[in-house]
């Protein structure tokens, strides 16, 4: 039986965005995320804490989002980590944020890569206050989302921000590191 050839990832992402995705106002989304971050800052006052909370929130979102993603995109299991990176950038980000970050800086052992985001819809209109500029990763929720989503497909990853245009850097860059593939674990107590 011939294996059906998958159309190129970028085309799939585009098609799905155009046909199967419900859309909302970009401003509404940006303002909502902005008020989440502002509220977290008021509640915690400590930028490291806020980063951690954003990551946790993202994780919870990612764990659920992956199901939606797999249902909408129907992509097959990725052969290797490079394919994973491609799928995340061209299909994942495209479907949910309508952006296509660039995959770059693959490490020699193919276990780490960078995502370079050109214009981040979360950070539209945002100006960081001076004291936040050194410590707050404004879009840290994205790190959590990727971590949660990939964990549900048996990959344990670490995702961190490397640079952010809101902080005055040239590009917004995320670093994704594969820690290990998760084996199916037998729950304790069963043999």
């Amino acid at each position, binding site marked *: 039986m011939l294996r059906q050839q998958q159309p190129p990832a970028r085309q799939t992402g585009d098609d799905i965005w155009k046909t199967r995705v419900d859309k909302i106002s970009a401003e509404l989304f940006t303002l909502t995320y*902005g008020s989440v971050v502002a509220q977290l800052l008021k509640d915690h006052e400590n930028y490291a804490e806020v980063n951690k909370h954003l990551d946790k929130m993202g994780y919870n979102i990612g764990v659920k989002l992956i199901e939606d993603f797999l249902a909408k995109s129907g992509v097959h299991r990725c052969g290797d980590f490079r394919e994973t990176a491609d799928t995340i950038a061209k299909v994942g980000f495209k479907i949910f944020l309508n952006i296509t970050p660039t995959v770059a800086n693959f490490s020699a052992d193919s276990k780490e890569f960078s995502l370079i985001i050109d214009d981040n819809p979360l950070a*539209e209109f945002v100006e960081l206050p001076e004291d936040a500029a050194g410590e707050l990763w404004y879009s840290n929720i994205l790190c959590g989302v990727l971590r949660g989503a990939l964990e549900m497909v048996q990959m344990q990853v670490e995702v961190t921000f490397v640079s952010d245009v809101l902080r005055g850097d040239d590009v917004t860059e995320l670093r994704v590191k594969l820690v290990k593939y998760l084996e199916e674990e037998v729950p304790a107590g069963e043999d």
Partner: protein
Amino acid sequence: MSPTCQFPAPKPVSSPARQNNPLYIKNCSTTYPDLKCHYVAHTSIDLIEERISATKHADQYLGLLYAMEELAVFGYITNTRVKFIIVTSLVSDVSIKDQDMKNMFRRIHNAYVTLVSCPFHDPDGKQPITSPAFEKAMAEVTTI
């Protein structure tokens, strides 16, 4: 056209308490002192209030409010009661077109909207605006 343009002072009136304090004042000219800008701005506010209470203004652009000495004052009010005021010095052989003024006000308004959309900006109406992006936008508007 190059009138020496002294610049706008947006003044918010938050709906319960009408505060009318200047949020941002930029003085582009070298001949007039800052104090004069404040003075002109405050008098303009009174005029604006008069204008809007007198007629039921559907339009945001208020046009030439008044002219005194060699200064002409133009006003613009948003639906949230934030007022923008541009003061220009009258140069006798150059007439200032309404359309140009409207364009300037529109750009200021857009810059203001961008500023307010920032989640870290607190529009409580008491503190002056310190955002560098807003200042950059204002500098651009005033250097035409």
